């Protein structure tokens, strides 16, 4: 039989512990341990310590009076973000997040309304606003086209029917310009630019005649075209249109910015 040690007996004396039942059974069966336990109880019970002196009712007051001058008053409690409690902090964070979300959607809505208002003021159709770059590209093409057309007309004006070297490139250039001229003319009509459309119409007629000539230009044909060109003042008109290009560019920019022409 294993005897109980002093530690086990002391724990049993004070707290009875988890194994109190087992110890009690052992003590009933083991005389030696029972004797040791009785001696321990006797020793501990005999330890009589002096009772603490009784303090009168004014003792607490005296203690307070002695320490009160040493204590600075607390400032009104400032609760920090964390100290105020997690829920308070979370509620602040949620409020901030809600504010940001509201501001975001309000901004988007305001932006959308601004765009709608602008579209309402502009008399030009919306698709033109939606795609300003093509307009500017057309302007650039028109400028180039008129430039090339002017050179062609100048060369045509001074062309000599006897010189095949001079006439043949005119025909090739006319064929090249013909397609571009039709695009520019179509665009001018869409823009309701009557003057440009009419001029390009006449240019188209001239270019077509020049391009469709199967063989080399004979003197009569060349003279007729030169006469026709001079009669309707096509070269002068092309030059005038060229001079208008900067204005058209400005107008195109203004249109792309939502202004009016």
């Amino acid at each position, binding site marked *: 039989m294993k005897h109980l040690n002093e530690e086990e007996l002391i724990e049993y004396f004070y707290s009875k512990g988890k194994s109190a039942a087992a110890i009690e059974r052992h003590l009933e069966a083991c005389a030696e341990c029972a004797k040791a336990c009785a001696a321990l109880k006797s020793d501990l019970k005999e330890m009589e*310590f002096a009772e603490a002196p009784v303090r009168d009712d004014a003792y607490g007051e005296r203690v*307070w009076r002695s320490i009160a001058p040493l204590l600075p008053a607390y400032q009104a409690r400032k609760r920090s973000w964390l100290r105020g409690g997690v829920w308070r902090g979370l509620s602040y964070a949620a409020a901030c997040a809600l504010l940001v979300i509201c501001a975001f959607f309000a901004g988007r809505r305001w932006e959308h309304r601004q765009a709608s208002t602008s579209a309402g003021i502009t008399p030009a159709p919306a698709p033109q606003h939606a795609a300003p770059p093509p307009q500017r590209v057309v302007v650039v093409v028109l400028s180039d086209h008129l430039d090339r057309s002017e050179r062609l007309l100048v060369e045509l004006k001074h062309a000599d029917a006897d010189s095949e070297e001079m006439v043949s490139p005119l025909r090739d250039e006319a064929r090249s310009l013909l397609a571009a001229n039709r695009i520019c003319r179509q665009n001018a009509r869409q823009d309701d630019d009557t003057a440009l459309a009419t001029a390009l119409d006449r240019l188209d007629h001239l270019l077509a005649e020049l391009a469709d000539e199967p063989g080399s230009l004979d003197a009569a044909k060349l003279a007729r075209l030169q006469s026709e060109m001079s009669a309707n003042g096509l070269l002068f008109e092309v030059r005038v249109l060229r001079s208008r290009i900067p204005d058209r560019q400005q107008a195109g920019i203004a249109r792309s910015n939502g202004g009016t022409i």
Partner: protein
Amino acid sequence: MVRMDQNDHAAIQAVLSGDKEMYGTLVVRHSASLFRVAFRITGNEADAEDVVQEAFLRGYRKLDGFESRSDFSTWIYRIAVRCALDRVKRRNLDRAGTVGEESDPEQDEVQVADGCAGPDRLLLSGEIGAMQQAAMRSLTAIERTAFVLRHIEDRSGEEIAAALGIQPNAAKQAVFRAVQKLRLRLAPLRVSI
């Protein structure tokens, strides 16, 4: 008890809001109980009174860290135990630095084993109490405090550990060592009786 806890918490809130005088109600309410445990640990009335004041001062400075779900009486009790423990340690250090009759264990033992002093005489002269006090003084500060809290204050192992700031097993061992030492010291008296 619940009502008193609520009153304590209300007073603490008032103190933290700037009403210093409300701390006075807490001091008045808990001074006596702190004095008792301080006296049992220090064994000295003057020291116990100093411990009470020091405990309330420390408590006031730490009051903004007091967890509202805790019990103020338990909290301030632990502070008082720590203060008392510190005082006993300091006193032991002071005593170790000087050579005195009471501090000499050998001398204590000689006094107990004095054959001229029979049990009846010891009992009559109140020297049993003196022997017990001498035996208590032979304990370390931790052992003495743990024993007082266990044997006199009837605190659990967990409460002792929390009050001393040590592990529960260390608190249990401190109580065991204290009991063993006390029994050893007081064994001559038992034989004589």
